[in-house]
């Protein structure tokens, strides 16, 4: 089959590899109908997250049609049209039973690579470094899905692929980020980042009853999306002296009740702090540029909630004093998509959630390297590149 291969830092190519096969009895094989880029992929494409191997198939946000099932698969059937969350989960361990799916204890084939960094291994992910399991990814014609009964979610008839695709990762990640905020009537929620996850977090905050949502970014086309598709107010941080002061004024000096970081380790910013972070990152002295997260911590109202969705590695100059003295509650996780999928599909069926506007650019799989380049450089207003094998 054809698949998008990581061959080294900033070296992606579409190559021919063998087809996946049923390896464990609860696997299924999916014929991928659509997959999409994710901002977190850029971290290993750019070389900031180690443990990729040349020859890895990448991609973790996808949907497709079931082509084959293992002998122990009970519910999923050949021909089912399904969407699959990016974390692989068993459904039977303590973490899965407590709906902490991305922390599943039984799906990491290489726990020895992750235990030294995190203390304990997480669930495995498709196509996202060997420290996260080393599983083959989904920018391919076919992908093997372990624990098919737990991780394949059947798509109701009538929902087009583009509306469902983002329920694999961007939508549940954003939805979880808003869920973390324990939104009460009248709440103001500020979201750093108006990419796929940030826009989904903003939409989810409204679905959960936020009175106002404020999106922060620097790209005019993304801020426009936040206003037009979501109904958010927006701040372009390159056009204001201080995001903190603007947010304070917008909230009567009180600050947002909850702040969501949907940016992560490659934040852009302005001023000395950004220059310091960028310099240290270029020298590999730390992996993260944390401007968005620092801003969110300072802007959040006293006793508010900080919800972190951006992916981080190792960062210094972390203002823990502001978190402690303002009594913030910090909630964070990689997405527990399986916990939210029923609700998300319900929102989609009722017409309350349609993330298809994120799919700004479509490519055949053969053009995936170009699709990633456009996505990375945000050319032509690219929010997400979508690949069709």
């Amino acid at each position, binding site marked *: 089959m054809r*698949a998008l*291969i990581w*061959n080294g830092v900033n070296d992606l190519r579409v190559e021919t*590899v*063998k087809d*996946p*096969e*049923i*390896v*464990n*009895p*609860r696997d299924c*094989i999916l014929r991928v109908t659509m997959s999409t880029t994710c901002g977190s992929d850029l971290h290993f494409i750019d070389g900031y*997250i*180690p443990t990729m191997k040349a*020859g*890895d198939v990448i991609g973790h946000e996808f949907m497709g049609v079931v*082509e084959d099932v*293992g002998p122990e698969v009970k519910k999923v059937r050949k021909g089912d049209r399904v969407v699959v969350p990016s974390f692989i989960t*068993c459904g*039977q*361990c*303590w973490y899965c039973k407590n709906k902490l799916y991305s922390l599943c*204890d*039984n*799906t990491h*084939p*290489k*726990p*020895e690579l992750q*235990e*030294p*960094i995190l203390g304990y*291994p997480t669930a*495995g992910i498709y196509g996202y470094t060997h*420290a996260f*399991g*080393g*599983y*083959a990814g989904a920018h*391919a*014609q076919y992908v*093997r899905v*372990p624990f098919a009964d737990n991780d394949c979610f059947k798509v109701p008839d009538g929902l087009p692929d*583009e509306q469902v695709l983002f329920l694999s990762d961007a939508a549940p990640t954003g939805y979880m980020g808003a869920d973390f905020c324990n939104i009460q009537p009248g709440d103001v929620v500020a979201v750093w980042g108006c990419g796929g996850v940030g826009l989904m977090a903003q939409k989810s905050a409204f679905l959960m009853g936020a009175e106002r949502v404020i999106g922060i970014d620097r790209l005019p086309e993304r801020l426009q999306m936040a206003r037009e598709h979501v109904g958010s107010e927006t701040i372009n941080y390159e056009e204001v002296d201080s995001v903190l002061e603007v947010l304070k004024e917008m909230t009567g000096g009180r600050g947002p009740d909850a702040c969501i970081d949907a940016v992560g380790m490659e934040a852009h910013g302005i001023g000395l702090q950004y220059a310091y972070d960028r310099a*240290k990152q270029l020298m*590999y002295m*730390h992996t993260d540029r944390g401007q968005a997260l620092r801003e969110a911590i300072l802007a959040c109202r006293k006793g508010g909630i900080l919800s972190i969705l951006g992916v981080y*590695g*190792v960062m*210094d100059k972390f203002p823990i004093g502001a978190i402690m003295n303002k009594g913030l509650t910090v909630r964070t996780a990689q997405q527990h998509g399986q916990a939210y999928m029923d609700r998300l599909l319900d929102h989609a069926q009722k017409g309350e959630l349609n993330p298809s*506007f994120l*799919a*700004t*650019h*479509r490519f*055949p799989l*053969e*053009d995936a390297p170009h699709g990633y380049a456009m996505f990375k450089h945000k050319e032509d*207003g690219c929010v997400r590149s979508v690949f069709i094998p």
Partner: protein
Amino acid sequence: MADQHDDRPRPVRNDIPARPRATGAAQSWPGQRHGRQDALRDRSSLGIVGLALAAAAGVAAIGLIDAQMRGTGSRTRTGPNRQPVSGHEPEVERSITIEDVPADELYRCWRDPETMKRIMAPFADVQPTGDGQTRWNAGPNLGSWDMRLADDQPGEFMRWEAQGGGALIREASVRFRPAGGNRGTVVVLRASLDPPGGMLGRIATQMLGNTLPAALASKSLHYFKALVQTGEIPTTERQPAARPDPR
């Protein structure tokens, strides 16, 4: 907006080969093959990961990862996992909590020769040879040896002893005890290593020097937990990748 690039040329894809069907009973499950290659690959890749992470993580993090890799992180120096003064006979101990499975059931599963074979596959090929003995093969450098079940307390404890010289593992044991708070069963795996002598032995001691044995013990316990709770072991074997060894 979503379709603004639809005018891009798209190749007609009618050349997609048919997928081969999986062959049910004839296939081998993970952990039944490539055990030795796994062990070697994991050792070298862990070193690479360590270096890469150290490069990425900065000075403070290097200290942290280094401490963890040496097994001196938060462990007492007098307990198991201590750094041996002589570099010989290090002991490793690792535990895992398996929720919702009683000790009796875990004991029975561990007693199954097939289980040992599968969960030890990253380290050695383990074959039952009858009379409660097993033949362990850790590859040409680290050698092969026999182990005998020397102590067997159903539902609680098993201990194995190496037979004869040249055994990398002199003694190993597994203990099952109830977890606090009604959270299932704690499984404690312990091994005393006795690396073979000579130059290769010293290299093996360095390679295994209280880091890898602990990591491998932990990996075996994770595999055991996955096998018990889900009936399978997570794997990347036989997956697509553009390199000779796809794992």
